[in-house]
């Protein structure tokens, strides 16, 4: 009896932040109530959808002109998340995910995930926490997974549905494809891809309503 009352009492304070998001469609998953609200430092030109989920206790920093799609999930439960300039984080991605190989305990000053500039994380991709670094201009493909502590160089491509094992270092201009196969990208199209990324961001900014105030 007493315990039930307490649960009821505890509920409103938890769901307070989420109640505003249930305007159109209610999800079966409780949205933001899963964790605490992290301290954020957004650049003024960030585009972040209202339905994006930021949880954790460590700071989340997002660089200028970066776009965060709705339902992207940024978890800074174990360490800070830093996202560079002009990145695109697509829907249903998990940045700073703690769980596929059991929970990880990070040190006090650990950085969970660092994304460089011009990084694209495509739909459903998972970037696990624990000092994971993704270099400039890298594309993490649809449904792929970057293991904890992996260090990915600049202008790499993680092909769709592929996996980067935990702790590996991947040199610049590498394509990871198939069953952990790697090859070097010799196209030399980094500059044009960055231009295309900037173009795409200007398009996305007109289409995704941004609400950074919700997270601050």
């Amino acid at each position: 009896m007493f315990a039930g009352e307490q649960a009821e009492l505890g509920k409103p304070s938890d769901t307070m932040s989420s109640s505003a998001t249930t305007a159109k469609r209610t999800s079966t998953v409780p949205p933001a109530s899963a964790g605490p609200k992290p301290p954020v430092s957004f650049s003024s030109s960030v585009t972040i959808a209202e339905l994006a989920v930021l949880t954790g206790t460590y700071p989340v920093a997002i660089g200028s002109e970066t776009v965060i799609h709705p339902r992207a999930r940024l978890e800074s439960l174990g360490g800070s998340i830093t996202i560079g300039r002009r990145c695109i984080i697509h829907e249903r991605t998990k940045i700073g995910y703690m769980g596929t190989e059991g929970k990880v305990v990070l040190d006090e000053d650990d950085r969970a995930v660092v994304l460089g500039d011009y990084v694209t994380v495509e739909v459903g991709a998972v970037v696990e926490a624990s000092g994971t670094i993704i270099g400039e201009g890298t594309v993490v493909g649809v449904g792929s997974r970057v293991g904890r502590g992996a260090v990915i160089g600049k202008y790499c491509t993680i092909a769709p549905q592929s996996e980067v094992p935990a702790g590996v270092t991947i040199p610049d201009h590498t394509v990871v494809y198939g069953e952990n196969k790697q090859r070097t990208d010799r196209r030399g199209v980094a500059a044009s891809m960055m231009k295309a990324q900037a173009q795409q961001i200007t398009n996305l900014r007109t289409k995704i309503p941004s609400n950074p105030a919700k997270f601050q």
Partner: protein
Amino acid sequence: MAPLSPYTYIQCPCSDAPSQARPSETPTRDIAADQDDDDRTFDPRAPRSNYSLYPLEYLLYCEDCHQIRCPRCVAEEIVTYYCPSCLFEVPSSNLKSEGNRCTRSCFQCPVCIGPLQVTSLETPPDPNLLAADNTSSGPSGPYILACAYCHWSSIEIGIKFDKPNGIYSQLQKLRNGGQTRLTAKERKDRRKEAMSTGSFASTHPSNPGSDDVLDVESQFENLRTFYSHQLSESTSAAPGLSMSDLGISSPSSLARLMNYYNVGSLDPSKKGLGNSRGRARLGTFREALDTEEGLQLAQLDESASISAFKASTLSDLTTTSQRLSQAESHLSNLVSPALHGSSRLTSTLRPIPVLLRTKRSKRCPVCRHIISKPEPKVASTRFRIRLVAGSYIPAVSIRPLRVPGVTPPPPPDGLLRPLVPAQYLLTFTNPLFEPVKVTLATPSTTPGRFASKVTVLCPQFEIDANTDVWDEALKSGSSETSRRRDEGSKAGGVAEVGKIWERGRNWVSIVVEVVPALIKTEGGEELKEDEDVLEIPMFIRIEWEADATGAEVGAAPGTGKEVREKRELAYWSALGIGRIGSLGQLG
């Protein structure tokens, strides 16, 4: 051990035909064997049964022989060849001349076998910077083949194309690295040029090593012209044997060619003759001496490839599967360098032309009637004729019989308990528009080392016709159907001998009781694969009356009476019930 979901396999009669089964045995034994055959129960575990048991969905049915046909016994005919990538139909005449790969612009990535796309190297103009006046021009060359998955592109092997279409023919003319490949005519022209300018020494026949390396196609072409030339010369030198008009590919010319090599015959009786003939002609017949005649010296100096290996990393080397796919496409990919081995570095890989596919029609092996024929149009997935067995013979589905309150709850692991009787429901669904009489027969124990007891409670029953669903729904109140419904023993809740369990519009379910055997291995004996699966061989015989087919069509209106004929079909099937657990497992 994973539990097994019940299955029904049907034996195709093709494996049973005595003429095919025992071709070597004497007729007297055959008769005895035939008599034996009637009594013999089908053993689904016999090694031969592996090749004759099929799920119902795989089987076809010949309407003229009234027999089941399986994928193994039908005769296939190719209707069309087409490219799966561009869906372009390839005429069979092209196939003979150009090989079994797409000769348009369809290629697979040599690294990851993903499809390659033709893309322009020129970056599309920035719409912000350009005015509206010259935006109409599309992308222009040069073009490359690029893989969207692993980001391989033909730039890596130094190949660019001028046009976005007809990539196959463009690729045939390009070597890796971008140099054009010389055709035989161009080679000849170049040689003439060299002769006239005086640089004779470099192309002299006595110095063949200095000449450039030929690819396989050119070498073959050169050799062929050389030998046909030699042949015509030698025949004109020896009058009376005019074979110059026969050409190199005729068999007599081949025999003649072989004669030249037959000098040292081992047969002493022919030795003198062979020698004299050989000597007489050897003078007029010589071997190829230089590149133009098709001589290709083996490149034994491998220092170049060794230094290439030294300079490369592991990722520059090709994998086995990459080499294999290169070798497979070699016939249609003739520009690739003639190596002793195969492509060792990724820089020697070439795009793989897409393999063509076929659409096939199927014929009955006995009466030659077509029983399956797809639409010849490539884009269409329809069939013109498709006589699947599923629309002629009843489908059998198996599920455990559960009567609430009577049957004990199933074991959680889904295994059968040994020596504990279990009841299963077999549901027969009739696809025909006539009512069907079904007779079942099973051996009382299953064949094999572990004999389980099998009892079919109702081995003979009738299934109603596959009538229209709406007709059935409208007359559901009639007394006949209600009588039929009462006949089932489901109402009683206990399966009764000689009674069906339940009846529906075009289906009947009956009960089969099994007592699974005790799986016990003695000593160190291992259980064979799937020996613990309870599989029942069941002989199914169906009888029905159908409109007589054939020549009676003209006579029918006159008599005003429908000609009915009795049909019968009988076949063996194997019903997989489940896996038997061990006593210890079940406690």
